[in-house]
C-alpha cells in the first residue's frame, strides 16, 4: 500500500520563504529543480535540495558496505536502513495561486505542516517558470547555488512543456534581464539549457 496517487510526501517545516518536505519513501523524490504543488490553497515549491539522511539527527550514518559487492546488497543486508533513513526536500516557495492562476512570488501564508506535496502539473509549472518574477525570486534568493537550481528547473520544465523551446526562450529572456550585467553567469546558465 503506497502513498495516495502521485503524492510525494509531507511538509515537515514551513515558513513564508521555504519549506521542507519529507518523502514517503526513501529515495523516491522528484529531481532537483522540480516544482511541487503543496497544500491547499496551493503553494508552489521549488525543490532546491534533495537530501537523504538519518531520520534521527542524533544517529550518525556509518559505512556498512565494506564487504558488499553492490549498494543494493548493503540495503538488502541492512533492511532497517529503509526505515532509518529518509529523503527530504528543501524547497523554496516560489509561487501561489492567485485568482485561480499560478503566480510567481511569496504566498500570503505558508503551507501547513503535514500538507501534502504533489508534483506540479506541467501547465502550471510552465506559467511560473517563464515569469520574470520567478527568475528574480530565484536569483535573489539566499540559495547557495541558485544557478544550479535554475538550470535544473528550466531543463525539467522545458522537457515537460508542450512548447519547450518557447518556454526556455521566455525564461531565458527573463534571466537575461536580471543578469544583464553578469554575462559569464548568464552564459553559463544558458549554455546548459540547450
Amino acid at each position: 500500500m503506497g502513498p495516495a496517487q502521485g503524492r510525494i510526501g509531507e511538509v515537515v517545516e514551513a515558513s513564508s520563504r521555504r519549506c521542507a518536505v519529507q518523502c514517503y519513501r526513501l529515495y523516491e523524490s522528484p529531481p532537483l529543480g522540480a516544482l511541487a504543488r503543496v497544500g491547499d490553497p496551493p503553494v508552489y515549491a521549488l525543490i532546491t535540495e534533495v537530501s537523504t539522511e538519518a531520520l534521527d539527527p542524533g544517529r550518525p550514518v556509518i559505512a556498512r558496505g565494506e564487504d558488499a559487492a553492490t549498494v543494493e546488497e548493503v540495503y538488502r543486508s541492512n533492511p532497517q536502513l529503509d526505515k532509518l533513513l529518509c529523503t527530504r526536500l528543501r524547497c523554496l516557495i516560489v509561487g501561489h495561486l492567485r485568482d485561480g492562476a499560478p503566480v510567481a512570488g511569496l504566498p500570503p501564508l505558508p503551507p501547513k505542516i503535514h500538507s501534502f506535496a504533489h508534483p506540479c502539473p506541467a501547465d502550471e509549472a510552465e506559467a511560473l517558470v517563464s515569469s520574470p518574477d520567478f527568475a528574480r525570486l530565484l536569483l535573489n534568493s539566499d540559495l547557495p547555488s541558485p544557478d544550479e537550481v535554475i538550470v535544473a528547473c528550466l531543463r525539467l520544465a522545458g522537457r515537460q512543456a508542450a512548447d519547450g523551446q518557447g518556454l526556455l526562450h521566455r525564461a531565458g529572456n527573463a534571466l537575461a534581464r536580471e543578469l544583464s550585467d553578469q554575462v559569464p553567469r548568464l552564459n553559463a546558465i544558458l549554455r546548459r539549457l540547450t
Partner: protein
Amino acid sequence: MSVDGPLGEPLGMVVEGSLSRGVEVRLNPGVSVEEIQEGVYVTIKGERRLFFGMVTDVSLGSSDPRLAQSPPDVSDPFIARIVSGAVTYGALSVMPMLTMPPVLGDEEKPQPAKTVPAHFSITHRASQRDMEVVFGKEDSSRFYIGNPLDMEAQVCLNVEELVKRSTGVFGKSGTGKTFLTRLLLVGILQRDVASSLIFDMHNEYGWAGQDTDRNRQVQGLKQLFQSKVSVFSLDPESSIRRGSKMDFEVQVGYDEVEPADVELLRQTLNLSEVAAAAAYDLERKFGRKKWLQAFLGLAGRQEVYELANEIGVNTAALATLHNRLSQLKRYAFMKPRALDDSVKRILERLDQGVHVVLEFGRYGSNLSAYILVANLLTRRIHQRYVQRTEAAEGGSGAAPRPLVICIEEAHRFLNPNIASQTIFGDIARELRKYNVTLMVIDQRPSAIDSEVMSQIGTKVTCSLDDERDVDATLSGAQGRRELRSVLQKLDPKQQALVFGHAVPLPVVVRIREYGAGGSFQDLTRPKWQEGGYGPPTDEELDEQLKALD
C-alpha cells in the same frame, strides 16, 4: 524597405541625450545594428511632438562591462538570441534636427529642433511620408537630387534657396562632382530661377560629358536643353572635333587683360611678387588696354632691360614677367584685339535666360589660360551686374537676372593668398547683393579661403580623404562632429552629404543617376512639370540618338 504610412518601422527608444550631443536610442531586440547605417533618418515620437533626426553614430552596447573579456557562446543560436537584446544591444546616436508639424500634411513646416524628445520616446525609421514632409516633393522650386541612404524617398533641394547664395561642390577626384554639378545645373535650368555661366574647363558640361565608369558619353546641358543653353568656346577646333554644337567663339584681346589678372596668375606662372607688381608699372607706362600688347611687343632681352631701367623696375623681374607672359601669345584665343565682345555676348544670353557654357577646349589643361579667362570674363560680367543692379536700385531698368557662375578648380581663384584680390573672392563675400553667386567645384576645399567657405550657403560634399578638407568643409556647420563621421563614411562615388540653405537639414544623398537607364528624359521632362518643354522634337530625338552612338 521603408514602411509607407504615418510612421516607419520602430527601431528603439530614447534613453538619454542632450540637444547639443543628440540623443541615444537603444535598439529594440529584434532590430540589428547592421540594418541601420549612419546617416539614416528617423522620426522620434516625443510626448508632444514628432522629431525628425539623423543617425550620426551606430554603436554596440552591453549592460555588462566585462562582456569583451568573457563573451557569451553566441555560436549557440539559443544563447545568441537571448543575449542579444537583453545584454547586448545596438544603439544609435541621433541628432534631432527638426520638429515636425503635429499633424502630417499640415500647412506648418518642419522647424529646427530646439529641444529633445523625452525619455523612452519611440524612434522609427523615417517613412516615405516623413521624408516628403521634410525634403518636399520635386516641384517647381525643389529639385530631386537623389535618395537618402536606405530609402526610396526623394531628397529635394530648394533650388530657389540654392541660387541665393554660393554653393560648394566638394569631393576628391572621381567622386562625381562634375556629374553632381551638372545635375544641380539641370535643377536650375528646369526651374529657370537663374542663369548660369559655366567655366567648363574640361569640356564636360556643354555638349556631352564623359561617363568614365560606363565608358560612354552622357548628354551635356546643350543636348538636354537645346536653346536654353549656349555653348561658347575658346577652342573651336576642339569643339568641332568633339561634335559639340558651338554657338560662339570667344577671343580675348590683349587689351582686356589687366594687371590684376597677372596678379592672379602669379602662382601658375611662377612669378615673384615684384614681377607681378611690375604689370602695374607697365600699365602706367603704356596706358590701360595697351600695356600688354606693348610689353609683349618688345623684341628681345635688351629692350626689356631698357624698359626696366626706364620705369624703375628690377630688370630680372621684368624679364621674367616678359618671359612668362609671352606664353599668352601661344594661346590662339588671345588676339591683340578681339573680333567680338565676348562679355557682351555672354551677357545678352544671360539676360535672355540662356545658360552659357564656356568650353576651354584644349586650354582646359592650361591653368594659366583657365584662370586668366575665367577671371577676366567674370570681372567684366560682374562689373556689369554691379552697374545694372545699382541702376535698378536707383530706379532705372530691371535688376539683372540672378546669375550662378560655375568654376571648377575653385581654389585657384579663392585660395587665401589671392581671394581678397580676385573677383571670385568679392562675389563670394558680397553674397547676392548683385544677384551673382558662385558654384565652386573643388577637390581641395581646404585650399579655399576660410572666409569664402563660410559664405557658401549650400555645401554638397562627396567623399573627402584629407582631414583638412573635411574640416574646411564642415567649418561653421552645426553638429560638426556628427557630420564629420557621416562624411568620412561616404561611398567613394555618387554619394554626398548635403547641408546648408537648400535643405532643411544635413542629408546624405545617393546622388541620382545622371541619365538613368540611358535616357535623359527625367532631366528634361521631369514628372512634376506637366507638359514642361513639350514632347521632344524630331530634331531633339535625332540628336539624342546620335549622342548614344
